[in-house]
């Protein structure tokens, strides 16, 4: 029953979005903002063809990048959250590196790892690495002290604390971080998929449609990105329901 309600709300939300979009397209009234009435059928049709392939290619890249970034960023974030001393050194460092547009390092990445698909994934992973790191760190450092003390008294050292307190305690934080960074990862596709590939939503949107002014097709591609975003959102949501059951008790 709960899940049905959730599905229903989602549909309501999506419907609202389409209505807004339709209204805006009426106001703007330019080819650069076509009506959803034209785009949605196109999207549905194309998803069974070419667009579907682009969608799959992008999904694969995003998933790989998110996975890599999480594997590196989450433990490091937990560590920094636990050890304010190290954080005081690394924190400003992150602040310096984080805003630098990573795309300029693409040549360096090419040099270091070749021009395979892996470079692209690395680029996306590097970009979201910092977002995950920052959120997880802040979450881990906000943990209640009594909890830590009580588990310490059961014999837990740093490693067990990590395993039994910091890790589960910051899972919600990791998931928040994932939610933020999944969005960013999809958005970064837009840049990362322009070159050296012929598949991916970024390629489709920029090269195949935007540059040749196929606005309706472009919006179909954008809907693909939206779809990818929302699928990942629900994936994260269902993980959350599994691992943080205690948050869903009313």
């Amino acid at each position, binding site marked *: 029953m709960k899940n049905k309600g959730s599905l229903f709300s989602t549909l309501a939300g999506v419907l609202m979005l389409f209505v807004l979009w339709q209204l805006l397209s009426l106001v703007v009234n330019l080819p650069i903002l076509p009506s959803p009435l034209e785009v949605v059928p196109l999207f549905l049709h194309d998803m069974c063809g070419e667009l579907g392939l682009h969608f799959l290619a992008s999904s694969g890249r995003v998933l790989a990048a998110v996975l890599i970034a999480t594997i590196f960023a989450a433990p490091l974030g937990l560590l920094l959250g636990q050890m304010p001393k190290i954080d005081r050194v690394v924190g400003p460092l992150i602040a310096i590196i984080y805003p630098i547009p990573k795309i300029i390092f693409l040549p360096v990445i090419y040099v270091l790892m070749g021009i395979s698909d892996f470079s692209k994934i690395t680029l996306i992973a590097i970009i979201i690495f910092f977002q995950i790191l920052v959120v997880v760190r802040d979450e881990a450092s906000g943990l209640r002290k009594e909890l830590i003390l009580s588990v310490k008294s059961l014999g837990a050292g740093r490693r067990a604390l990590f395993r039994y307190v910091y890790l589960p305690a910051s899972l919600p934080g990791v998931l928040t971080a994932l939610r933020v960074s999944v969005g960013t990862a999809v958005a970064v596709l837009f840049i990362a998929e322009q*070159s050296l590939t012929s598949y991916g939503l970024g390629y489709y949107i920029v090269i195949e449609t935007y540059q040749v002014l196929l606005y309706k097709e472009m919006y179909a591609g954008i809907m693909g990105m939206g779809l990818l975003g929302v699928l990942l959102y629900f994936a994260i949501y269902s993980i959350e329901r599994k691992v943080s059951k205690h948050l869903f008790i009313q």
Partner: protein
Amino acid sequence: ATDKGVLRLALLPVPDVLPVYVALEKGYFDELGVEVEALPVGSAVERDQLMQAGKADGMINEISGAANFNREKIQVKIISVARSPIGESPLFRILAAPGSGITSVADLADIPIGISKNTVIEYISTRLLTFGGLKEEQIVYKSVPVLPERLQLLLQGQLKAVTLPDPLGAAAMEAGAVEVINDLSRRDVSASVITFTTEAIESKAELLKNFMVAWNRAAEDINTDPAAFKELVLKKIRVPKNIQEKFVTPPLPLKAIPSKMQWDDVMAWMMEKNLISAPLIYEESVVSDFLPQ
């Protein structure tokens, strides 16, 4: 870039690179024993990045772009012209917004023109505008590096004038933009070029020669029957939907290198723009050894 038998080319989806795809399709490279790997890129900067990273041997770019590479050390050499304004096919057009009332270069005095700064677009625009009679101080530019964005700003009238490359320029005209001038009137300065790294030129000289032979054969094919490659063109080259019907593959120059005059004019402009501190020597950056006999 170390594979001996392979030439890696960073290629933008523009008509200038068409001979590569035609030669690939027709098997000219295979016949001559050249293995060509096309690396599609989305933007000029990424093309340059691939070159910088040593992951591509050559590219199709412009004179000023090649000069940027050679600023401190000769890294690349121009071995041929790729495309220049021929017949009725310009490379670049200065366009005015629909209904703006601008029809001549004189009307563009003090009107901001949307361009991509510090690139060939600015160079050509400047040359065309001064050719049309404007003084330096009457020329105002606005930076809009992303092409579709520039087109939109023009069509919406947010910018009164822009410079666009074909086929996007033609598409803008189809959508109502008014052509003010195009580079057919300055055939002497406008050109895109084939550029290879010095490393490739030294270690793969034979390959390059054969590459140019194949290129020329492909270019000849295109010139004789432009319509024959329409399908390939639409697949590899970005042609806006509204002109796909009408689009004719532009004719290509054969067996030419940029002239010293062309080079020096670009040097002069780059000096003006502070992009280089001293003019680069023509002979060090342009070689004719690879033009087919």
